[in-house]
């Protein structure tokens, strides 16, 4: 799998001319499990940055370009992006066993930790001091999410992407204010948004 993806003719020609950034041989299943577990346990508030550092810089299993191409795929698939990423990377390196190892490394150890926290919360969640601390942490966590939304919104605003902003606001109203079910909203919104994207692309090239 992994060789196939880099063996396309342009890439091979490129590699012959310039000594391209070298990558190490693909890791085994155990190495994949350990690497993804480490990235995941280091990843407070998002694992992506740690995944990039681990895969590209530390282990050199991929070049930065290969990483970006692979991540682009995970970005428009549904579901937790970083989980998709672990499966796609794992399968590039070691087929289905690699995919399972990377996924288990990413999700298993932090899931154990979170389960312990959940048990502690179920037991002590009503203790006054803990309630007050959690109320404060919630405020911080919500603030972080708001800042992420603003950072994501800025490119649309800077490009004066009116159509994109209209789609964004419409989804916000349907889900956030009217509280419609996600499936229903997406079944309407995705076809409309796709159609708009196709029309915009045609007009840009015409």
């Amino acid at each position, binding site marked *: 799998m992994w060789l*196939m993806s880099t063996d396309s003719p342009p890439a091979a020609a490129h590699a012959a001319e310039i000594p391209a950034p070298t990558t190490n041989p693909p890791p085994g299943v155990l190495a994949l499990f350990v690497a993804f577990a480490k990235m995941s*346990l280091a*990843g*407070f*508030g998002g694992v992506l940055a740690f995944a990039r550092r681990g895969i590209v810089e530390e282990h050199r299993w991929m070049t930065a370009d290969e990483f970006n191409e*692979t991540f682009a*795929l*995970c970005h*428009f*698939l*549904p*579901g*937790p992006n*970083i*989980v*998709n990423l672990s499966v*796609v990377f794992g399968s590039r390196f070691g087929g289905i066993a690699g995919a399972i190892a990377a996924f288990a490394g990413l*999700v298993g150890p*932090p899931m154990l*930790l*979170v*389960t312990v*926290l*959940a*048990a502690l919360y179920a037991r002590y969640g009503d203790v006054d*001091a803990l309630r*007050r*601390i959690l*109320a*404060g*942490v*919630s405020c*911080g*966590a*919500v*603030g*972080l*999410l*708001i800042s*992420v*939304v*603003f950072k994501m919104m800025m490119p*649309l605003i800077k490009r004066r992407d009116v*159509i*994109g*902003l209209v789609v964004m*606001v*419409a*989804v*916000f109203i349907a*889900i*956030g204010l009217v*509280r419609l079910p*996600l*499936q229903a909203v997406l079944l309407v919104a*995705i076809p409309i*948004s*796709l159609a*708009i*994207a196709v029309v915009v692309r045609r007009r840009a090239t015409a």
Partner: protein
Amino acid sequence: MTPNGNPIWALVWTFGLMSLFAVGGANAAIPEMHRVAVDIRHWLTERQFADIYAISQLSPGPNVLIVTLIGYSVAGVAGALAATLAMCVPTAALAYYASRLLTRSSGKSRWPAIIQAALVPLSIGLMAASALIVTQAADRTWAALLVTLAAAVVAAKTRLNPLWILLAGGILGLTGLI
């Protein structure tokens, strides 16, 4: 249409379906998690939902682990495991096959760019709805809302490690200010 008896099956059904509709990742699916867990099935109260979101942000690992916490509060360790796997496995299988398909075909298609252009505004809208819903769940007082907005400004303007912001929130909370 939905199984009502066994809570494990309810979790598997809920999150298995959500997995395939979670455009923009786990944080974009928070409104749907809230709708199902708080409004429809009454698994959690509004305050518990806010607490669980805070705990999930405090812990390392992917954001999707908020479903582990929801699963635990519904059906203990088995619920935690069932909810997590249900939320991850369907989309992971999809990712596995999509990646094999795309490696085989040439990378010249213009569809990935079009799909991305279509989905980006959608997922930002979903994230904005998530922000609104967790704000409503967490911020019951004016002081809380003020701390939230301050945290948002600090996070947007500085490159401070997010953990410090969570920690500062926790300390402010302990003093009873919020």
